[in-house]
């Protein structure tokens, strides 16, 4: 593990600009994938609307910077907080739906935000808005320092999400979530408080997704409703990463993320065919081994990088 993390921490000292951009993208996709996996794989909350929170985070940090003069670095955690606060009432609506209808309901809510932000002329309406140059310059002394900073923030957020999900799943809460996912009625009967637990996970994931969204658009420096609330970027790709790598494990999203970026390097020129190929792989995996590539690997070799199995103590 150290062998991977130390070179990554030193990234700005060895990687060129293009590599760093790619790694930043890898980091936030991996974090988004882990968070979606926590929802769908561990908590049984299958959302197709996480783009709502990516977009809200992005628009929050832009609004905080432009209208309240909040320095963008403070804006990151604040954007996460704002997103979590907005997620609260939306969750209350979405939680009225269950199963497949929950999935489509979260999608409708994301669409409401996309269409709504397109109507806000102070934020550029449908054509979007750029972060004022002064705000960008205030981040760091020069461009390369800013890029290094963005890189470390992305890496830090990814590690926080990874460790956070791991520790959560090793805790009593994680045990409750697994019980709930495997058999909700049984979990309730042994005293798992279903609804508050799911609700808290949903809000927490929304907040962290919002922080990632803030980071994504801080790196892009420009935000539009189409990009911010894109179902293709923030749901389709993230879901494919988790499904291909292996849903319901921490290793799966990592494997899926590596595979996704490798495939993209080779197949991105294919354009729409690339998406067709990813779609076919995902469908095949769901039909053959729903636990993904990691499930196929561990069937033969029972290994684990992040043990979450619970042992009875005492």
């Amino acid at each position: 593990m150290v062998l991977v993390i130390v070179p990554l921490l030193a990234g700005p000292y060895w990687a060129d600009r293009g590599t760093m951009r790619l790694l930043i993208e890898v980091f936030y996709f991996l974090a988004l994938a882990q968070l979606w996996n926590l929802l769908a794989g561990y908590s049984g909350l299958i959302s197709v609307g996480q783009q709502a929170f990516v977009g809200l985070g992005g628009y929050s940090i832009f609004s905080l910077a432009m209208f309240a003069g909040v320095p963008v670095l403070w804006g990151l955690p604040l954007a996460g907080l704002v997103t979590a606060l907005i997620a609260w009432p939306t969750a209350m609506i979405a939680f009225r739906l269950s199963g497949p209808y929950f999935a489509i309901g979260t999608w409708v809510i994301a669409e409401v935000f996309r269409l709504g932000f397109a109507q806000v002329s102070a934020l550029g309406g449908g054509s979007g808005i750029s972060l004022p140059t002064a705000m960008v310059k205030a981040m760091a002394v020069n461009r390369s320092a800013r890029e290094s900073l963005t890189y470390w923030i992305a890496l830090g957020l990814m590690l926080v999400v990874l460790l956070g999900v791991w520790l959560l799943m090793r805790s009593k809460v994680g045990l409750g979530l697994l019980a709930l996912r495997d058999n909700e009625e049984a979990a309730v009967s042994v005293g798992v408080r279903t609804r508050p637990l799911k609700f808290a996970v949903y809000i927490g994931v929304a907040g962290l997704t919002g922080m990632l969204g803030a980071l994504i658009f801080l790196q892009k420096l420009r935000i539009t409703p189409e990009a911010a609330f894109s179902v293709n970027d923030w749901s389709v790709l993230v879901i494919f990463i988790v499904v291909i790598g292996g849903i319901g494990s921490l290793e799966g999203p990592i494997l899926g993320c590596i595979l996704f970026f490798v495939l993209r390097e080779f197949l991105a020129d294919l354009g729409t065919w690339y998406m067709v190929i990813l779609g076919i792989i995902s469908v095949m995996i769901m039909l053959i081994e729903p636990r993904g590539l990691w499930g196929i690997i561990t069937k033969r070799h029972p290994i684990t990088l992040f043990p979450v199995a619970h042992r009875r103590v005492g």
Partner: protein
Amino acid sequence: MDWINAIVQGVLLGGLYALFAAGLSLMFGVMRFVNLAHGDFIIAGAFGAMVLVELTGLNPLWMLLVVVPVMGAVGYLGQRLVLNRVVGQDLLPSILVTFGFSVILQNLMQETFSADSRRLSAGALDTASFSLGSGLSVGAVPLLMFVAALLVLGSLNWFFARTNMGRLLRATSDDPEIIGLMGADRRHIFGIAMLLASAVVGVAAVLLAIKTNFDPAAGPIRLLFAFEAVIIGGLGNLWGTLIGGVILGVAQGVGAQIDPGFQVLAGHIVFLVILVLRPQGLFSRSG
């Protein structure tokens, strides 16, 4: 007058939404399963009709005779060969497999037909309209859509109430385990449910192609409209989906009258408000 006109158009548009919704409602009712590629299947049917029109040069309405049975057959086979493997207790595989289908279909259509927006012409029917007096007029195509929705929903209701297969489908809806004991093959029953849902998709597809522009990426929003109509109307109630579709259509029509940018947003907001006030829908069978 503009407002009344917007409402009338909205009501008629609701017929098309009810057709979108009927397929979704049927699948969920019988199999507790939702096809996230539902909207993309509608658009695929529309492109199918377009290809047939280009080949034959006939009026698109004739294509109903081909598109509806072909969609039905594809639905039955798709259910037997693929979807039956993922329908079950665990919701995750069915949601993710159909979500994958949605992305595959969208991109295949874009590869085949380009991202251009299309529309089919029904000849003189496109511009024909009936005057209702005092400046109010109703287009022939919207009226046709509404009548088609009444016919389709009426036939489905008759089918469920009066035929043996309809009764079996309802029994499956009530308890999917028990029909096995009655000697029925659940895989076949599910196939029939999907056949019906897909045939309705075929009707909706041809009418959509005449009524509005469509492009390969236009599917997901139709899934959302179908879903909203189902939830507004209440689960398990086919006539409820018609009311749901009409409410959605009127909300969009009135929204567009306020500002064109509000059309779809107004529909979503009315849906969310109804979900908050009456989560079981307006005409739920159970509620």
